[in-house]
C-alpha cells in the first residue's frame, strides 16, 4: 500500500462520506424541523425550513426552565467530579502504598462491586437514601455518584499509581513532608493524565444519566437536563415543534464540550476501555 491517493481511495472516500451523511440524517431532521412552524413539520418533514424560525427555541428555552436546569446539571456534574477525584485518588494512593491484606481486600471489593448493575440496588437504595436524608437534594445525589463512581475511578487511579516510583516520595518524607503533603504536592500532580481520562468518562456518564436523578430529585426546581427533557416530552407529546427545539437545546452543551475536548475524549475512551 503506497502513500499515493489512488482512484480506489477516492471511491472509498465517497462511500465513506455517504455513510457519514447517513449517520447525520437524524440530526438533520431534528435540527431542520426544530426551525419550522408546527404545520410545516407535519406537511414538509424532509424539506429544509422555508424560513428560519427561532420561536420554538425561545418557547422551549422558557418552558424547560433551561437556565436552572443547565445550572443543576453543571453543579451535579462538577461537584461529583471534584469529590470523585479527591477522595478516590487519595484512597487509591493509600491502597497502593500500604502493603497490607486489608488494602487488597478493600480494593478487590471496590472492583468486584463494579459488576453490580444499577437496577439491582436501586430499590433499597432509595429507601436507604430516604433514611439518610439524601433524597431531593443535589448534594445527596453527588454523594451517591461518589459511591457509584468509586469503583471505576479507584480502579483507574490504582493502576496508574502502581507505575509511579517510590523514590520521589521517600525523598520528600526525609525532607520532612507529611504523608498528606507528599500526596498533594508530589503524587497528585503526576496523576494528571489519568485524572483527565477519569473526569471525561465520569462527566459523560453523570451528565447523561437519567435513572438515578429521576429517582432522587423529585422537586422540579432540581431537575437536570435529561430529567427536564423527559418531563417536557411527556407533557408536550406530539408537539414536535417544541419538543425538537428542546432536544437540540439539550444537546448543545454536550457538543460544545466535545469540540473543545475532542482529543482528550477519544484518548480517554481508548485508555478507559482497554483497562
Amino acid at each position, binding site marked *: 500500500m503506497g502513500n499515493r491517493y489512488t482512484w480506489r481511495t477516492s471511491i472509498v*472516500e465517497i462511500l465513506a462520506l455517504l455513510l457519514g451523511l447517513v449517520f447525520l440524517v437524524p440530526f438533520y431532521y*431534528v435540527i431542520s424541523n426544530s426551525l419550522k412552524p408546527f404545520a410545516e413539520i407535519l406537511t414538509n418533514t424532509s424539506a429544509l425550513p422555508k424560513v428560519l424560525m427561532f420561536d420554538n427555541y425561545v418557547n422551549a428555552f422558557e418552558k424547560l426552565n433551561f437556565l436552572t436546569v443547565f445550572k443543576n446539571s453543571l453543579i451535579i456534574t462538577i461537584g461529583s467530579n471534584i469529590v470523585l477525584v479527591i477522595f478516590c485518588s487519595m484512597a487509591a494512593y493509600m491502597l497502593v502504598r*500500604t502493603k497490607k491484606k486489608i488494602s487488597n481486600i478493600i480494593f478487590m471489593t471496590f472492583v468486584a462491586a463494579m459488576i453490580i448493575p444499577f437496577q439491582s440496588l436501586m430499590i433499597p437504595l432509595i*429507601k436507604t437514601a430516604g433514611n439518610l436524608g439524601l433524597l431531593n437534594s443535589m448534594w445527596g445525589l453527588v*454523594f451517591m455518584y461518589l459511591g457509584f463512581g468509586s469503583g471505576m475511578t479507584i480502579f483507574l487511579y490504582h493502576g496508574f499509581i502502581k507505575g509511579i516510583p517510590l523514590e520521589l516520595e521517600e525523598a520528600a518524607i526525609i525532607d520532612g513532608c507529611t504523608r498528606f503533603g507528599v500526596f498533594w504536592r508530589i503524587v497528585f500532580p503526576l496523576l494528571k493524565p489519568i485524572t483527565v481520562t477519569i473526569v471525561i468518562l465520569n462527566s459523560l456518564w453523570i451528565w447523561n444519566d437519567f435513572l438515578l436523578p429521576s429517582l432522587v430529585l423529585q422537586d422540579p426546581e432540581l431537575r437536570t437536563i435529561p430529567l427536564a*427533557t423527559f418531563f417536557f416530552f411527556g407533557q408536550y407529546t406530539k408537539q414536535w415543534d417544541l419538543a425538537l427545539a428542546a432536544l437540540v437545546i439539550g444537546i448543545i452543551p454536550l457538543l460544545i464540550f466535545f469540540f473543545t475536548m475532542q482529543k482528550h475524549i477519544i484518548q480517554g475512551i481508548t485508555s478507559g476501555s482497554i483497562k
Partner: protein
Amino acid sequence: MNNESKLDTVKGAALTNQKSTKVSHSVSFLNKKKWKEAGLFTLFVGPVLLAFILIVLIPFFTGIYYAFTDWNGVTGSVKWVGLDNFKYLFTEDKQFQTSFILTTKYTVVAIILTNLIGFGLALLVAQKLKTKNVLRTVFFMPNLIGGLILGFIWQFIFVKGFASIGQLTGISVFELAWLGDAKTAFWGIVIVSVWQGAGYIMIIYIAALQNVPQELIEAARIDGANRFQVLRHITMPLVAPAVTICLFLTTASSFKVFDANLSLTNGGPFKSTEMLALNIYTEAFVNNRYGIGEAKALIFFIVVAAITVLQVTISKKKEVES
C-alpha cells in the same frame, strides 16, 4: 515490600536486643506510630469507603434480603416468603419471561451489528482518506448523547421522518408504522443502539488497528496476498484482543439497556418491547411490588455477573497465551 513495614521489622529486631528499661518506652512509640498510620489510612480511604458502603454495599445486600420478602414499600410490614417470588417469576409472570427472552435476543442482535459496523467503520477511517478526521467525529458523535435523548430523537425519525421519506420515495420499509408494531419497534431499539454504540466500538478498533505493524502488511502484499487475505490472516488475528473487549463491552451495555427503551417505545406497543431493566423498574416503581422487583433484580445481577466473570476469565487466558 513497603519501606515502612520494613522499618517496623527493623525496629522490632532492635527492640528485642535493647535493655528492659527502654522496652516500655519503645513499645509506646511503636503503638503511637501504628495508630498514626491507621489514622492516615482512615483519612485517605475512609470518606470514599463510607460512601461506597452506604450507597452500594448496604443497598445491594438488603436488596438480596428483600428478594425473599413480600415488601411493597408502602406498608411497614416485610414478611419473609422464601422462594415464593422466584416461583412466581418462573411459573406465572409471563411478562418477565418474555422480557428475559426479548433482552437476550436483543443483546445478541445488538452485539453482532454494533461490532460488525464498528469494525467496518474503523477499517474505513483507518485508510488514507482526506476526510478521515471529520468522519471519525461524525461516526462517534451519537455516542456523546445519552440514550434518553437519542431515543426521543429517533422517536421523531420513526414517526415523522420515516413517513415522509416513504411518501417521497415510495419505499415500503419507510411507510410502516415502526413504533406501532412489536417486531419493527424491536428493530427500532436495535437501530438506535447500533447508531449510538458503533462509533464507540470504532474508537477501540481504530486503536487496535494502529498497533498492527505496517511492515507486516506490506510484506504480505509483496508476497502477493490480496486485501482480503491480509485482513483475514494478518489484521484480524492481531486485533483479536480488542474484539474480546468490544464483545463484552457491548454485551454488558446491551443487556442493561434502559434509557433508549424508555424514551423510544416505553415498552410499547402493549409491553411487547419491555426489556429486563425496564421491567424491573416498572415492577418496583409503578406496581410497587418491591419484593418481586428485587427478585428480578437479583436474577438480573446473576446474569450480568456471569457475563463479566466469563469476560475476565477469557481475557486473562488470552493474555497468558499471547
